[in-house]
């Protein structure tokens, strides 16, 4: 596959790894006193484990797995609200496969489906629009989930539905944005991060400048990275070089896809359809100011929260996390997945307690699936 295979070349990887080892040595980082690099994006976490990159990089580098997995940071109450909408008569509830197994306080969407709700897994929000066209007598609700990468797709879908006056289509909007939680993490006094690997596909939409504050205000380097193993390794090297040289700037390793100023059509669609919520709840991180989006009044007819009087539209919310769940501490880097008292005990992929064990991008599930041997040894 073009633009994929070239960036998975093991020979080239060896050379980058040698350079990474050299620069790590030059910095003086060791296993006891490592450089801590957060890969913000769950896709990067997945790639690190899929290719075993954590075991190939020197001990002087520690990867902290960031909050960039939209499923992992989804509060249980939102899952409950999905189930509530899906179980209404006449509703066809459409979702990406990712959200199917996430536990709510009572059940997951997969269980709701078994209980009789009409829940369909789709590949694209456009497939939900098509379902609305074909089922004029049913309410088709799309579970809008994801960061800036995915937001344009639901915005464009809502615009399309508006043009066609598809009054039976709506979106349950749970879109969130990357920069606010990063600022929250940087403001956390317990946080000890030396640099960031930035989510390339988010920057494909928003460009690289929204991260300038990380370098300018907090003095941390960030490199916007692609998703193939060579992309990741090169980005790690670029972060290390900045640390070694005492620099902090936002660099773009993924220039083949990421334009400096993002994608104007995507940004216009987001601005047209969505506005920032005053605050939005992140699982494990709590309410974060201006970190979530809601549908503007102009498109109110397509807002499932308004249509069904649910979620933030229903008034103040109380949320409870399952007892003993350490997702919050893991997500902020205060605890490794294996340090969570529930890891592998009360919480496994078969019986997930927290969202980090549910999503294949969750740090805990990734530890379990790909790093399991080491994880089990660490626990022993």
């Amino acid at each position, binding site marked *: *596959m*073009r*633009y*994929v295979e*070239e*960036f998975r070349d093991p020979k*080239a990887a060896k*050379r*980058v790894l*040698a*350079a990474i080892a*050299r620069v790590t040595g030059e910095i003086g980082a060791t296993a006891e006193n490592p450089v801590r690099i957060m890969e913000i*994006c*769950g*896709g990067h976490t997945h790639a690190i484990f899929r290719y075993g990159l954590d075991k190939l990089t020197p001990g002087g580098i520690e990867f902290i797995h960031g909050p*960039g*997995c*939209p499923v992992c940071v989804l509060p249980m109450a939102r899952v409950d609200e999905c189930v509530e909408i899906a179980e209404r008569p006449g509703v066809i509830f459409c979702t*990406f496969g990712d959200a199917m197994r996430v536990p709510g306080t009572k059940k997951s969407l997969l269980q709701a489906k078994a209980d009789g709700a009409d829940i369909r897994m789709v*590949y*694209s*929000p*456009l*497939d939900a629009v098509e379902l609305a066209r074909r089922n004029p007598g049913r309410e088709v609700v799309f579970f809008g989930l*994801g*960061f800036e*990468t*995915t937001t*344009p*797709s639901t915005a*464009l879908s809502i615009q*399309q539905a508006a043009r066609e006056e598809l009054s039976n289509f709506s979106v349950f909007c749970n879109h969130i944005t990357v920069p606010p939680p990063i600022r929250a993490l940087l403001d956390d006094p317990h946080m000890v991060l030396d640099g960031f690997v930035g*989510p390339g*596909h*988010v920057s*494909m*939409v928003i460009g690289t400048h929204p991260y300038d504050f990380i370098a300018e205000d907090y003095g941390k380097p960030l490199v916007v990275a692609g*998703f193939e193993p*060579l*992309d990741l390794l*090169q980005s790690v*090297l670029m972060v290390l070089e900045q640390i070694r040289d005492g620099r902090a700037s936002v660099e773009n*390793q993924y*220039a*083949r*896809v*990421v*334009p400096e100023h993002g*994608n104007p*059509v*995507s940004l216009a*669609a987001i601005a047209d359809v969505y506005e920032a919520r005053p605050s939005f709840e992140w699982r494990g991180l709590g309410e974060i100011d201006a970190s979530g989006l809601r549908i503007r009044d102009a498109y109110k007819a397509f807002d499932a929260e308004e249509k069904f009087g649910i979620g933030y539209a229903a008034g103040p919310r109380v949320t409870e996390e399952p007892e003993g769940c350490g997702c919050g501490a893991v997500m902020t880097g205060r605890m490794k997945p294996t340090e969570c008292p529930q890891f592998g005990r009360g919480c496994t992929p078969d019986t997930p307690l927290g969202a980090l064990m549910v999503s294949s*991008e969750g740090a805990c599930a990734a530890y379990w699936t790909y790093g399991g041997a080491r994880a089990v040894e660490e626990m022993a």
Partner: protein
Amino acid sequence: MCLGIPGRIVEITDAARLMAMADVSGVRREVNVACVAGAALDDLVGAWVLIHVGFAMAVIDEDEAAETLEALRGLGEAQEALEQIAEGAKALAEQ
């Protein structure tokens, strides 16, 4: 987050709705090209795009890709040069 994969636009299927057929290693799926559509839609045919949830989100820049690979190659050469210097120094020290 945000699985995105490169595919090639092979045909415009519905100009009004900005839909096109994309090919990913022989698998085809209709995608929306609103985000990458320039003045002439037909110019997209043959272009490599990055696809996410049924939308072409970016046109992949061939020159930038080549430059990144070149940088990786350069890294290899620099590394080899360093290794040679290190070996030379070792040999000198052993003499």
